[in-house]
């Protein structure tokens, strides 16, 4: 009986200790995060690049987020010349200022954006469905607008067709 009572007391002491440690760690983390946020420790300027780990984190989050959401069916006429021609016109109007084009010099906006907009000439690792999703919905905190708010899907697929013909 005595042994059982002692064991229960010890268990209670452990529980209290573990709970205290968890609370202290949680409060410390919360304080650290609050200090970081409210002291303005994070540099949000676009002319100071992220450190490599932060850049990797942002890029990885973005890649997986796009892959998880790009579910639209790809039209089977993406290499159609009419689509590509229409896409080129749209591209010149909507995209070239940031993503540039063959033979085009870098614009001031393309040099000032952070993260830099991917250049058309470098190709893309995105699938057509992913490119469509990006063009339609945009990407937060990159300067990439959601063109789907002002353009219909067919026009956006034309833009994707241009990229598709470039990569094929």
């Amino acid at each position: 009986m005595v042994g059982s009572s002692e064991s229960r007391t010890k268990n209670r002491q452990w529980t209290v200790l573990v709970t205290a440690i968890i609370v202290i760690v949680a409060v410390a983390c919360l304080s650290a995060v609050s200090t970081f946020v409210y002291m303005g420790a994070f540099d949000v300027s676009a002319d100071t690049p992220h450190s490599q780990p932060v850049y990797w984190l942002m890029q990885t989050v973005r890649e997986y987020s796009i892959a998880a959401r790009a579910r639209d069916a790809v039209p089977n006429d993406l290499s159609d010349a009419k689509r590509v021609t229409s896409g080129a016109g749209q591209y010149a109007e909507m995209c070239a200022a940031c993503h540039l084009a063959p033979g085009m010099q870098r614009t001031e906006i393309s040099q000032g954006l952070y993260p830099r907009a991917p250049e058309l000439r470098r190709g893309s690792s995105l699938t057509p469905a992913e490119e469509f999703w990006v063009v339609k919905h945009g990407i937060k905190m990159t300067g990439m607008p959601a063109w789907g708010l002002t353009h219909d899907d067919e026009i956006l697929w034309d833009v994707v067709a241009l990229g598709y013909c470039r990569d094929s």
Partner: protein
Amino acid sequence: MTMQSSVTRVIGIAAISVALASGAPLTFAFAHEGHQMECNEGSINAMKADIQSMPDGKAKTTAIKETQAAQDMLRKKDTKGCMAHMHTAMEAIEK
């Protein structure tokens, strides 16, 4: 690459060139050539941002190495050396 995809590609490039020539806003302001950059922290940061968006490969590795060398030279206040490394880094970035 199939014949059809080659033709489509040529059409695409031609179409975008025509579209750009006719439709691109005249207000596009072409910024300085990278080679005219000054050796300072701001220019080095701009090159680092450019490098981050590059696909992995030899050009990126060279650009990283040269930018680091330029930064080292900047710390040592060797402007000539810094400019030389920045020039090489810019060439790698533009590839």
